[in-house]
């Protein structure tokens, strides 16, 4: 049997990689994929807790997180398409109209 900690460490590592991707990368699509990675790392720890505690709530949460992620991906990619149509770029450093 694999102890719970191993899953949690993998999940934490993947979350850190996702954070790094959001902070460092400037391509809006890759930033978006890093957010998906973070969502998935949290899903992994939820499933791990669910299975080690014998409580189905974790799996239900993952189910809903997946729904939210699907909705988020659809809307986010639509926003990226609209941005690209208006500014011809997906570099988030160049998209700074709302920045004061």
């Amino acid at each position, binding site marked *: 049997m694999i102890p719970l900690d191993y899953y949690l460490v993998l999940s934490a590592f993947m979350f850190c990689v996702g954070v790094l991707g959001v902070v460092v990368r400037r391509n809006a699509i890759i930033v978006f994929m890093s957010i998906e990675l973070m969502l998935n790392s949290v899903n*992994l720890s939820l499933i791990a807790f669910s299975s080690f505690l*014998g409580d189905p709530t974790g799996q239900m949460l993952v189910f809903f997180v997946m729904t939210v992620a699907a909705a988020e991906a659809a809307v986010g990619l639509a926003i990226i398409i609209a941005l690209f149509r208006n500014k011809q770029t997906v570099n988030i450093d160049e998209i700074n109209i709302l920045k004061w």
Partner: protein
Amino acid sequence: MSFEQVVFYFLAVLAAFSAVMMILQRNPVNSALYLILNFFCLGGLYLTLNAQFIAMVQVLVYAGAIMVLFLFVIMLLNLGDDRRLREHLGLRMYLGIGFSVALVLELLFIFLFRSSNSAVQQSANAAEMGTVEYVGKVLFTRFLFPFEVTSLLLLAAIVGAVILAKKKTAE
């Protein structure tokens, strides 16, 4: 090492590797493919945790639907030339890298010096808990209301995506 451990280490290392490669790739298509690999590994890890239903949903919805959407958008935008996307490492980037590495080291420290009384055994009813039957039963009884609210969320997302991505007609 038992079979279980071999499977876990293989999937875990592959998942970590593909996550790192995902943010290192210059071309977004390669990033998306590494992310798909990562999602498949996570699906396998869910199977080692006896969550069969979620593992299937992971492969179908995430690796199947969401990542295909990503690939569509990447190819639609035709970002092949990354000259216009030159990424320079400013002070902010170095700070970001520094803090992320610090976070990883911190977590590693916690892992290495943890107390040894952590859960080592999966719960006895974990095996039957991941089946479609059990998940469906819980989903349609205890979680019926959130499940129904989900439909509203998806409807809003569909309408929003269509409106946002629609070409502006002459006003």
